[in-house]
């Protein structure tokens, strides 16, 4: 067998209290798309950061094309031919595309030449991109293109992609896969990190599964079922939420003709949105990030106020009310951004529970906080939603993303909402916790609440929603029954009137 492009031998990295990687060994062959699978916290990020020179391993060796490879910093890794596309984009909003690309290169040519090369590479790989545009104004898919092109301009031998499809529409995913296959055929190896099993089956040639920092298996994803891989990843059999047929009740909330200006420079204006929800219904709203999701949640939660009659709930006009008044009526919301929006990072879980549950759970008396009751409520949420934390006195910041997500969702669901609005309920949450959250949303609807679930994860929306609508450029499409919608139909709804530029792939 020929020398592998990259060989990892016994990589170990421990942080205080956690072993992120333990004795990890595997090979990546030239020209293969190698999947790295694992739940959140399995150590995938630490491992790729080690390869990219951001983290120094405590023990173990790496060999690149047979030679010892110990990058002291990302520059050294880049010089050796390793490039990385980050999960949370490492882009600079206020700068243009060419400047962003120059920042990721070792010896960048002058701006004008970069612009020319960007155009060349984007034609070659079907990734249309204008080098003079300001990055803050690009869609998530376009932003990812910036990162990919930044890597491609350096002719990498190994391209690391960390969860690249989590923010893309199906069409954009198709374009990305086409690009990656072309790269592979040109001899570039790709280390593809994901927990989306169907994608890995469709794209990858080999897979290594990590659990709790250790390699627990390797497989050929083309010959292994998604279920088998999931069970390798989770270490037990996976619970899939059950969608029972529900009786749908009367219309409980109506939104009519909602228009709102963009709240900040990189925000999206909402345009003439109509929406109704019934008791016992889950309305799924899909769309690529930045198409008005945050703004819609804000308008429903009361952060953006509208005209009185725009929002009607149970026969009352509530468009002019603020968040707490709406909470009292039973309209609860969980925004997407956990740290700083859904939760105050440096406050304890008790305090965070108090912040939204104060009205419905009666946590104050004559203006003074009933701390005992607040603590009990926080503890109840922690218990019911299996939040892994020593107790309610810990700060929100000390929780992992998935655990905090369970807490902020649980905090609202335990208040028995009449209408529950949630944005990205399972973003960054591992498979089993995501299943638990989806089950909780289904249970809530079974009890007769209306749920509006906004998400970029289409599989999730198809799994739980009764009706599906798409947000695009601040407009909401007419909802359609979720059952029987094909991926192509969804893609078209998501794309709206915009040109999805699929054609460029074949060009």
């Amino acid at each position, binding site marked *: 067998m020929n020398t592998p492009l990259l060989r990892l031998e016994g990589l170990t990295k421990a942080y205080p209290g956690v072993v992120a990687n333990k004795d990890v060994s595997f090979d990546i062959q030239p020209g293969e798309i190698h999947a790295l699978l694992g739940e959140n916290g399995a150590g995938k990020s630490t491992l790729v950061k080690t390869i990219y020179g*951001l983290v120094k391993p405590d023990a173990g060796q790496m060999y690149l094309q047979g030679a010892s490879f110990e990058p002291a910093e990302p520059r050294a890794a880049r010089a050796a031919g390793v490039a990385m596309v980050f999960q949370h984009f*490492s882009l600079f909003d206020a700068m243009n595309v060419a400047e962003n690309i120059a920042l990721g290169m070792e010896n960048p040519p002058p701006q004008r030449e970069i612009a020319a090369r960007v155009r060349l590479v984007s034609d070659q790989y079907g990734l249309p991109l204008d080098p003079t545009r300001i990055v803050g104004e690009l869609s998530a898919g376009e932003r990812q293109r910036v990162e990919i092109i930044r890597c491609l301009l350096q002719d990498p031998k190994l391209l690391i992609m960390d969860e690249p499809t989590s923010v893309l529409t199906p069409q954009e995913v198709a374009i990305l896969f086409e690009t990656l296959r072309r790269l592979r055929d040109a001899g570039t190896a790709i280390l593809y990190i994901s927990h989306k099993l169907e994608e890995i089956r469709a794209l990858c040639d080999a897979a290594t599964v990590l659990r709790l920092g250790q390699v627990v298996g390797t497989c050929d994803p083309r010959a292994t079922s998604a279920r088998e891989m999931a069970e390798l990843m989770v270490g037990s059999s996976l619970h899939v939420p059950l969608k029972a047929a529900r009786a749908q009740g009367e219309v409980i909330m109506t939104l009519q003709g909602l228009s709102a200006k963009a709240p900040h420079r990189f925000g999206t204006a909402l345009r003439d949105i109509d929406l109704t929800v019934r008791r016992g219904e889950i309305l799924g709203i899909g769309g690529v990030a930045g198409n008005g999701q945050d703004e819609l949640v804000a308008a429903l939660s009361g952060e953006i106020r509208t005209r009185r009659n725009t929002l009607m709930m149970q026969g009352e006009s509530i468009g002019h009310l603020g968040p707490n008044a709406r909470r009292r009526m039973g309209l609860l919301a969980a925004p997407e951004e956990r740290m700083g929006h859904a939760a105050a990072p440096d406050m304890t879980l008790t305090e965070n529970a108090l912040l939204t549950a104060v009205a419905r759970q009666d946590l104050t008396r004559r203006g003074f906080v009933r701390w005992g009751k607040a603590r009990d409520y926080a503890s109840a949420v922690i218990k019911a939603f299996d939040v892994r934390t020593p107790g309610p006195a810990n700060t929100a910041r000390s929780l992992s993303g998935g655990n905090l997500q369970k807490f902020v969702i649980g905090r609202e669901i335990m208040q028995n909402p009449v209408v529950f609005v949630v944005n990205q309920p399972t973003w960054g949450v591992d498979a089993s916790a995501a299943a638990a959250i989806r089950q909780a949303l289904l249970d809530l609807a079974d009890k007769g609440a209306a749920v509006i679930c906004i998400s970029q994860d289409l599989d999730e929306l198809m799994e739980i929603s009764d009706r599906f609508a798409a947000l695009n450029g601040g407009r909401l499409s007419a909802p359609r029954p979720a059952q029987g919608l094909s991926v192509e139909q969804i893609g078209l709804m998501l794309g709206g009137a915009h040109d999805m530029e699929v054609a460029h792939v074949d060009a």
Partner: protein
Amino acid sequence: MDMSAINPVLLLASLMVAATPILLAAIGELVVERAGVLNLGVEGMMITGAVCGFIVTINAGSPLLGFAGAALGGAMVALVFGILTQVLLSNQVATGLALTLFGLGLAALLGQSYIGIKAPVIAKWPVPLLSDLPLIGPILFNHDPVVYLGILIIAAVWYFLTYSRAGLVLRAVGENHDAAHALGYHVVRVRLLAIMFGGACAGLGGAYLSLVRVPQWTEGLTAGAGWIALAIVVFASWRPWRLLLGAYLFGGVTVLQLNLQAAGFALPVAYLSMAPYLATILVLVMMRSGRAPGSLAQSFHASR
């Protein structure tokens, strides 16, 4: 009242002189803030520069060495701020305010035995040929070298930020320090260098006050110029040429109101004295305001 006593050519020429200390301090702070650091200690760095420049000039007899000493002194107190905020991760706002108080006290201590001494006069450097032009010559090209240096620094900073690789990295660090770190740039190193540059510029500005404008050492002689410089950076939307405009506007109205006072203009002195502040704020607010660097005033720690 005799308006004819005001000579427009002299007025414009002294505008450039009046604006120079603020201009120097502000361009330094602009670079610091573009790197994502908010240093509220400009006043303290200016006055440290003022006293250092004065002491060196008197002892060495050379204003040139004096200005070099002022830049060094400003950079050194700035480095204290840099180590506290960048290495020890102290709060930038509190540390900056402390730096101002520290600088005022330090300068008073150092300058005790220099009160009442007069600084040597710094000769003007008329630019050959250009200074002979009618009108423009005496306004623009007949000044001491530090006035030209101020404009040169503005131009250099503008070129550096817009066209150079290092300037791009500096802006990247200020815009999103986590992303810059992920790409392998040394956030703390870049910021420390920027902070020291800011300190050196503030020091030059302070020395211009003690060696040219006043020209002698008195306690508290910066009299809030550092705060004006801070304000001009924000109102100029972190852009060098706008900053030049803001500083000249402030300097211009300052000189004008002094002239009006001398000419016996029929407005209470208090209103005339506040005019430069009002005019600067008004004009700069009316111009389209820009966006602050994304990571401004946030501490950076690689593990977060």
